């Protein structure tokens, strides 16, 4: 397969009928993917096959059947070339606590074949880029979670890769560090014209950074689409804040044949036609409750995710169910 130009508009990742089995267990099932340049979010519950997909794309494991290419390089035979052009930021800690940040990033560059002088120079640049300029000469064991994540990102960016694969980049970060991480990734896409493939359980992060999502469930790709297109497909709803008897209101709405979703005193009603709002107001009168606020509800990625998971029959009530102890820090 011919290698692709960095600035080409062709998909950077292509997979056709990709299948991976671990013994009798099917990890990836007939995966067909076309990932264009830009920021793409990979979503899916634990065990969905995200990590297996990443390993296949990095050329680290042999696929059972199917084919694929990354930047025009065959994932079955050109794994080393692929890994030279990809920056991988692992989810879990992968840093030597005894090294200074600058030395770790330099070593990460040298492991890619950069000579020591270039790797050192580049390590200074990327550490500055990820906001660790003043912490370059600190031992990694003294770093906070945010600084560790930033160092991992610096290691992944040291050779200016065409594609950056980030496994849960905002994992364990506080609000400020999370915002900075997303801003850095966004800048890498917009300014650096690089592609970012990001897996995350935090829908807000994916929505903030990515234009497109790929959703995996039980080894299958269930959605690959632009986020905007998906949002349009979700039913329109009106959100009401009820005071003085949300249960009564819910019952009244149900009796009028309206589809509702309720979270405490917030009730969302599916907009069927123009009479929906009028019917909702009538229901409020009948139930003798106050509507303190009424607005059109804009669905977000979490709604899409839950909707899809619901259709697939997965027992997930919210994205919090997807989080493990590593994500929550034990809280």
């Amino acid at each position: 397969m011919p290698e692709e130009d960095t600035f080409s508009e062709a998909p950077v990742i292509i997979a056709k009928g990709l299948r991976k089995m671990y013994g009798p267990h099917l990890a990836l099932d007939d995966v067909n993917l076309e990932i264009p340049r830009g920021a793409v979010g990979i979503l899916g519950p634990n065990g969905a096959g995200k990590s297996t997909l990443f390993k296949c794309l990095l050329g680290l494991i042999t696929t059972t059947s199917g084919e694929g290419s990354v930047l025009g390089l065959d994932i079955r035979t050109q794994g080393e070339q692929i890994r030279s052009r990809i920056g991988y930021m692992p989810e879990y800690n992968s840093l030597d606590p005894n090294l200074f940040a600058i030395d770790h990033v330099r070593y990460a560059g040298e492991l890619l074949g950069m000579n020591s002088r270039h790797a050192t120079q580049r390590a200074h640049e990327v550490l500055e880029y990820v906001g660790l300029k003043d912490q370059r000469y600190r031992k990694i064991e003294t770093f906070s979670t945010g600084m560790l994540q930033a160092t991992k990102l610096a290691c992944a960016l040291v050779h200016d890769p065409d594609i950056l694969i980030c496994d849960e980049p905002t994992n364990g970060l506080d609000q400020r560090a999370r915002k900075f991480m997303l801003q850095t990734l966004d800048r890498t896409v917009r300014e650096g014209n690089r592609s970012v493939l990001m897996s995350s359980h935090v829908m807000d992060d994916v929505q903030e950074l990515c234009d497109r999502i790929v959703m995996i469930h039980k080894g299958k790709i269930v959605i690959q689409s632009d986020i905007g297109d998906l949002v349009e497909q979700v039913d329109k709803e009106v959100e009401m804040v009820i005071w003085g008897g949300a249960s009564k209101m819910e019952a009244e709405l149900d009796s009028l044949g309206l589809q509702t979703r309720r979270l405490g005193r917030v009730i969302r009603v599916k907009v069927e036609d123009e009479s929906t709002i009028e019917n909702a107001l009538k229901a409020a009168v009948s139930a003798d409750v106050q509507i303190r606020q009424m607005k059109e509800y804009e669905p977000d990625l979490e709604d899409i995710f839950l909707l899809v998971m619901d259709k697939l029959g997965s027992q997930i009530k919210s994205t919090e169910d997807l989080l493990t102890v590593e994500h929550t820090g034990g809280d």
Partner: protein
Amino acid sequence: MSDRQVEIEGGVTRMEAAFGSGDGDEKATAVVAKSQASLGQIFEQKYRPWGGELGPRWMRNYAIFRHHVYGVFTSKGHRQYHPMVRLLILVIFLASLTPIPMLFLSSLIGDEGGFFQKMWGINRYNLWGQALGYFPRNLCMWPLLTAVVVGGMISDDRQHGTSAIYFSRPISRMDYVSMKYLSVAIILGFVIVFSYFAYYTSAIVFKAEGWAYLADTLPIFLGGVLAATILVITYTSIGLALSSISQSRFFAAIGFLSIIYGTKLVSLLVELQFETTFMYAMSPYDCLAHLGQILLGIPSNYDHPVSISVVSLIIMNSAAIWLLVSRVTSLEVTRE
């Protein structure tokens, strides 16, 4: 002018004019440009592309090798060896060179055929002892040296998840394990084989020996080099295999010492009880010592044939390398 006289108004600083051109009825102020406070862009994030070329495979492998070997000499920028570990390596290295000053002393006092020459001069027994003698080298020095060097070589990668930084890059597991192996072997080789070489050459230099002496002793010397090299390979294989199965550097170190000393002790007890040396075939040290005796041409103090020791060494090395390879194969990129 005092601070009280300065008015901040409309984005400019108005200050009292010392000398004005007006009639004096208006408020005597002068408008001056406000000195722009440098609020500063403390951090300007800017993506900088890199247009360099990545080097070939040998550069990547050399980086792994250098990272582990240079760390013994300098703590800056390379793998961290604890200062006490580095001190221990230095002490062992210096201790392994102790025959050299004795040879120097011998040549200085003209001790031809005397005590110094007998104890430290070049002969089959002393060359064997330099690499394979039990006390002090294989009791107090080489196993300790191996234990502290191999301790965290792979187990640290397991513990910290740093295997991901290797395997997410164009480094194969073969490159990874072979460079780790080479790093340990070079450090051990530097102390064990280099000290052996230095001992032999210093004897020639201090005694001003000629070509005839060299021709006589070179085969014995080379036999010793071969035996020392096999010792380095065997200790490296066993040590790295233990390092690869654990997340603790102490496990690898203690495990290695237990194997070396434990098998020796058990074999000794069996010999004392049953008067057979056969059990020494399971002791890595004794197999090496037995083979070394044959290579250097000195009488063996084991009853069983050397072929058993050779086969035992092959099995030990094969098993250790198999374990090492299988454990490195299981190292993960996505999680550990």
